[in-house]
């Protein structure tokens, strides 16, 4: 595949105003990484998981509040704290 794209997947066609979106990309040295991203709630409990796309991107439809993103890639696990709100997609770039 071609290189990583900045930010998360294209939001065209997504009802951003009514959704609480957390999205972004997982890269290593600027190149997309195939792996998984887990969404954990404020208590650290698992909520959802998606594989990264061929361009290293991911997206969750969540609810407003504090979340932890956990990127799982071969040999490595990286956590990022995020605050999500309705109407504005949160963009998270995770470098591993």
């Amino acid at each position, binding site marked *: 595949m071609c290189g990583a794209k900045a930010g998360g997947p294209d939001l065209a066609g997504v009802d951003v105003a009514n959704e609480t979106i957390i999205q972004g990309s997982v890269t290593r040295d600027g190149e997309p990484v195939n792996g998984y991203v887990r969404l954990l709630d404020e208590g650290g409990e698992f909520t959802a998981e998606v594989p990264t796309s061929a361009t290293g991107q991911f997206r969750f*439809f969540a609810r407003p509040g504090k979340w932890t993103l956990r990127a799982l890639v*071969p040999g490595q696990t990286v956590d990022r704290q995020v605050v999500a709100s309705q109407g504005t997609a949160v963009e998270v770039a995770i470098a591993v």
Partner: protein
Amino acid sequence: MSRSDVLVDADWVQAHLDDPKVVIVEVDEDTTAYEKNHIRNAVRIDWKQDLQDPVRRDFIDQAGFEALLSAKGIANDDTVVLYGGNNNWFASYAYWYFKLYGHGDVRLLDGGRKKWELDSRDLVAEVPARPATEYKAQAADSSIRAFRDDVIAAIGNLNLVDVRSPDEFSGKLLAPAHLPQEQSQRPGHVPSARNIPWAKNANDDGTFKSDDELKALYEAEGIDLAKDTIAYCRIGERSALTWFVLHELLGQENVKNYDGSWTEYGSLVGVPIELGSN
């Protein structure tokens, strides 16, 4: 029954890739994942196209299962190893079908596709050719399948385990957070159900926790393992994973998977529904 009779690790699969009596089968939520790549010599079962009745809401009947496995080149005496994405949700669902129709030796790959990928093991695009067989299935074993009336009768009497996420259980969401929010008419859960999300059964890499950890989990959540249990989720795939844990790993005798799950129950007229968390 021991854990190794129902669960194999990635090293075991690696060592049996060319074993003619072992059939590796990928079953994914994302049914296109197999087309990109898969474990070498694995065949695909598509949970939507292959496992569902094309007209009614039900799964394929005995003759349909026989035709499917025959076409996939799976024989009655083959060892079938199922794996898939999303922590084996749909692989567990397929496992439950194989048991329902009486297949002798079926196992899950511990951790599924995720563990295989995180180990950086090889995946290939080449599709194997397996000669067709004449598979004979047994009559469906209804002792491991619950219907809506079983669930209503279980309220306050049996263990009801709702394996969805806490937000789906409490009624804040109708579907998992990575899927569009649709399906049932009403949010919430079956009264007296305990919310024990499927994810609590697994480690981050998708492998199952140890038997001792799993037993402790269900007991700590107030499940009386001496009682019969019905597990449900939204469409019956995540609860098939919990059914696998309770029935296959922990050896509980009377555990049923309610595959109608919340998309059926949450659309029934007149049944009781509870909102809020445990």
